[in-house]
C-alpha cells in the first residue's frame, strides 16, 4: 500500500517535471522520499533523479573533456550507473547533490587518468547555449566567449578544472565543494583562485566582451 502511494507520488512528480520541460526545476522535487524510493529500487524514482541531473552531469563532463561528446556521454552513464549501485550506501550524511557531484568529480578524474595517454584535447566548437532574447550578434559573441573559456578550462590541471566546473555549473558553496572534492574549504578557495587567474590571463583580450564594456 505504502509502495503504491509512493509510486503514485513519484509518477505525479515525474509528469510535472516532464510538463515543465526544464531539467533544473526537477531538482527541487528530489526530496528524501525520492531518495528513499531509489533505495528501494523504484524505477520511477531513479528516472526522476536521472532527468533532474543528467544535463548538469553531462555539461560538467562535456566541458571537462573539452567538448568530447562520446566521453561525456560515457562518463554521464557511468555516473548514473554508480549512483544506482551505490544509492543504498547514501545515508543522508551530506546533501544528495554533494554526494552526486563527488561521484561526478571522481568519474571525471578517473577517466582523465585512464585516458591520459590517449586523450587529445582537440578543440570543439559545440557549446549549445540557448539564450532567447539576445540579438544574433550577442549570441555569437557569447558563443565565441564560451568556446574560448572551455578551451582554457580544458587546458587546466584536472583538479582546477573540476573545481571551476562544479562552481559554475552547480553554483555549489565552498563547503559543498569541499565535501564533494574531499578536500578543505581552503583548498577549494585556492583552486578557484588559480583557475580564475588562469582564465583572466589567457583571455585578457576578451575583457571587453566578458564585462560588456
Amino acid at each position, binding site marked *: 500500500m505504502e509502495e503504491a502511494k509512493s509510486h503514485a507520488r513519484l509518477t505525479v512528480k515525474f509528469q510535472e517535471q516532464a510538463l515543465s520541460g526544464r531539467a533544473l526545476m526537477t531538482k527541487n522535487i528530489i526530496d528524501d522520499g525520492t531518495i528513499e524510493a531509489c533505495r528501494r529500487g523504484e524505477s520511477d524514482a*531513479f528516472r526522476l533523479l536521472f532527468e533532474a541531473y543528467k544535463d548538469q552531469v553531462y555539461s560538467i563532463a562535456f566541458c571537462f573533456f573539452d567538448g568530447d561528446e562520446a566521453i561525456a556521454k560515457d562518463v554521464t552513464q557511468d555516473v548514473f550507473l554508480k549512483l544506482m549501485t551505490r544509492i543504498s550506501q547514501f545515508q543522508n550524511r551530506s546533501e544528495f547533490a554533494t554526494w552526486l557531484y563527488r561521484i561526478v568529480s571522481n568519474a571525471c578524474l578517473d577517466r582523465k587518468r585512464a585516458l591520459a595517454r590517449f586523450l587529445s584535447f582537440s578543440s570543439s566548437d559545440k*557549446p549549445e547555449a540557448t539564450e532567447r532574447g539576445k540579438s544574433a550578434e550577442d549570441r555569437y559573441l557569447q558563443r565565441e566567449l564560451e568556446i574560448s573559456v572551455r578551451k582554457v578550462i580544458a587546458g587546466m590541471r584536472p583538479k582546477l578544472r573540476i573545481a571551476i566546473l562544479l562552481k559554475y555549473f552547480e553554483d555549489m558553496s*565552498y563547503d559543498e565543494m569541499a565535501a564533494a572534492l574531499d578536500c578543505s574549504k581552503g583548498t577549494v*578557495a585556492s583552486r*578557484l583562485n588559480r583557475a*580564475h587567474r588562469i*582564465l583572466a590571463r589567457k583571455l585578457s583580450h576578451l575583457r571587453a566582451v566578458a564585462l560588456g564594456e
Partner: protein
Amino acid sequence: MKHVGRHLSAYHHGELSAEEHLRVGSHLLHCSKCRDAYDEIRLGARLASSLSVTAAPAFTWRELRPNRAVTRRSRWVAPIAIGALAVVIFAIISGRGRIQDESSWKVSGVPGMPRLRPGEVLQTGSSSEAEIQIANIGRLTMDPNTKIRLLITQADQHRIAVDRGKVEALTWAPPRLFIVETPTATAIDLGCKYTLEVEDNGSSLLHVTLGAVALEHEGRETLVPAGAFCHTRSGSGPGTPFFEDSSAPFQSALRSLDFGRAGTEPARQLEIVLREARVRDGLSLWHLLPRLEPELRAEVYDRLAQLLPPPSNVNRDGIVALDPKMLDAWKNVVSQLWQ
C-alpha cells in the same frame, strides 16, 4: 601590511566570514597590488560565468546499463553486493534484466553465423571482430584471432570457454551467472566489465574495469576488483592480483614471486614488494599471505598491518597460521580499498 590575494575568490563569492570580508574589503581600498589581483579574479569569474549547460544528447534512460551486481556466496564482496542489489532491481523493473532461457546467442560480425549455440565454436579471423549478445544479460566482444566455445546457456548459468585470443565482457546480471573458462583458471563474473586475454600456451591476463571478477583454480578464489590485473599461468593458476597503478618494480617482483623459476630468491623479491607497497596494494599483500612460506608470511603481516591495521580479533600468529576466520576478518578491511 598583509596582502589578501589568497582570499580574493572567496571574497568575490561571499564565502568569507563578515569579519574577514570587511578586512579584505578595507585592504583592497588601500592596496593597489591586491586591487589589481582582484580585478583579475573578477574577470576570471565573469569569464567562467559564461559557461552554459549543454543539454545531454538523446541518450535515454533505457540506454543505461547496470554494471554491478550482488553476490551472496562470499563476504569478500558483500559491500559490492549491497549496492548492486539496486542494479539488479533496476534491471528487472526496467524490463531489460529479466533472465530467461535462451537457446542460442546472437552474433554480429561473422558472416554466415548469426547465432551461436551450445557446443559450437566461434573463431574470428586475423582482421575481423565479433560481438555477441550473452543471452539477455550482457555483451561479449571478440578481438581478431580469438576462439571461443559456447558450453552452456540456460537460466541459471551461461558458460563459455576462451581457447585463445582476447574478449571483452560486459554484464548486467546477478553475479556468478556468466562464467568463462580458460586453460588455466575460471573467471566468474560478479557483475562487471573486463577483458581477458588468453595466449596460445594457455596463460592469460585479466583486466577488470568495472565491478569485480573472481578467478577460481583448484578450489582457491582470487578476487580481482576494478582497476586491477591478474595473470594466470599453466600449472600455477592465478597469480596475485595487483592494481594497474602500482609501481613497475612492485609488479615485476610480484610476478617473480608468483611464477618465478626455482632458485629465484623469493625473500629478495618480497623485500621489493613490501618496500614498494602502498595502502592500495593491500589487495596484493592480502592475496600473497597464503602463497608464501610462514617465515615470509610474517613479513607480509607486518607490512600489511602498517598499511591497513587489522581488526582487534586478528593477530600475527593467527595470520601466519592462516586462521580462516582471521584472514576473513582482515579481508573485510582490505576490501574497503575498492568500495
